[in-house]
């Protein structure tokens, strides 16, 4: 796996997160190291309670570690004030959840452009950038539809477009295919994979091995620790006969 020459997008260094105190203490994560580079999609698997969601919230700067450091595009989150952290999050990180991803009163293109507008972009610039992002998930035609006029799979693709709109480079997905049937889930994964191939990096929490297999690496969490990492044995070149480095 040749990832040494690609920019690091996300990094956890020795990260632990303890909830509660004394007898009620829960070690949700213990000394976790994880690095994602440009173009990389990493899947996280593990039993319920193993720390998957905690990992995502720390990576997205929604929570701070008890010890260790989180870096987004080389910037340590520990150095940021709460206000700067919020701005950083808006510009760099997008989430995709199992459901309730989109604002029902906004069209697809308005949903995708919203983070840009919140960050000060004009409506026109936001729309233009959002349309490009929708094109990346093959949804140009549905740009002016409202969420309830789209299928579940299409809505998740809009959420992916929003997660990686404009300057945003980090997609964090918690069971994004959990509410979809397996065929639709697979179609969403295919789009997500293509989108990450174009740039940015993604972390995907899933319990579905078939969906995890779309990732470059699969990481196992158990009791807050990474117990194993699985990367495809064959290089992409050997399998696909292209120059893509994995």
């Amino acid at each position, binding site marked *: 796996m040749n990832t040494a020459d690609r920019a690091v997008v996300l990094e956890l260094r020795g990260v632990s997160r303890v909830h509660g105190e004394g007898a009620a203490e829960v070690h949700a994560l213990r000394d976790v190291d994880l690095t994602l580079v440009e173009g990389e999609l990493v899947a996280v698997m593990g039993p319920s309670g193993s720390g998957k969601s905690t990992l995502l919230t720390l990576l997205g700067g929604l929570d701070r570690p008890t010890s260790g450091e989180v870096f987004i595009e080389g910037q340590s989150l520990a150095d940021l004030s709460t206000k700067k952290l919020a701005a950083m999050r808006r510009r760099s990180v997008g989430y995709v959840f199992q459901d309730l991803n989109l604002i029902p009163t906004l069209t697809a293109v308005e949903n995708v452009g919203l983070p840009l507008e919140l960050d000060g972009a004009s409506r026109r610039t936001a729309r233009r950038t959002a349309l490009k992002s929708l094109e990346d998930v093959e949804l140009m035609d549905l740009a002016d539809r409202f969420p309830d006029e789209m299928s579940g799979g299409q809505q998740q693709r809009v959420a992916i477009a929003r997660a990686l709109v404009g300057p945003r480079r980090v997609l964090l997905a918690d069971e994004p295919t959990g509410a979809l049937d397996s065929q639709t889930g697979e179609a969403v994964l295919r789009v997500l994979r293509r989108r990450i191939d174009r740039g940015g990096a993604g972390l995907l929490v899933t319990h579905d091995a078939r969906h995890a*297999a779309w990732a470059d690496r699969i990481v196992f969490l158990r009791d807050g620790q990474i117990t194993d990492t699985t990367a*495809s044995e064959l290089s992409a070149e050997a399998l696909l006969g292209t120059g893509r480095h994995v």
Partner: protein
Amino acid sequence: MALLTEGPRHGYQLRAEFEARTGGTWPLNVGQVYTTLQRLERDGLVEGAGAADAEGRIAYVLTDAGRAQAADWFTTPVDKTSDPRDELSIKLALGVGMEGVDIAALVQAQRSATLRQLQDYTRLKRQADDAHDLAWELVLERLIFSAESQVRWLDHVESRVRRARRAEPASATAADTERVRS
């Protein structure tokens, strides 16, 4: 034989088409193809279509009986696709009853290997999909589904053994072996 339903073919063509449509998953040698054709001819299921070509090859066609049997083959369910005596089941059944065998590690190692396979198949499936190669994609999906089911079974084994160990912490022996086997 199924390939002959599409028209006359000679041995080399049959082999080439079979391998192309199954992505080379089951390599055949041309000797096997000709032996099979001879057996089918003896049983009255195929017959030579005209004389040999310039290179001495004879094309074969299905007889009416052969056509009926090919149709049957497509519609008959395959049974016994999973063999409970496979090596993994044996490792687990033996390991569960032995002191000093780390079942969690065994399961984890197997799951990682299977997931790696799943990743490889998925990459190939992407490639097949981009090439609009439906036949190859279906073969790959068969491999993908069976790898996935193995992962799910391993998850099940792991939690099952954990629970059993917790229930009888001193020594989990013969009883567990029986349960895994059944």
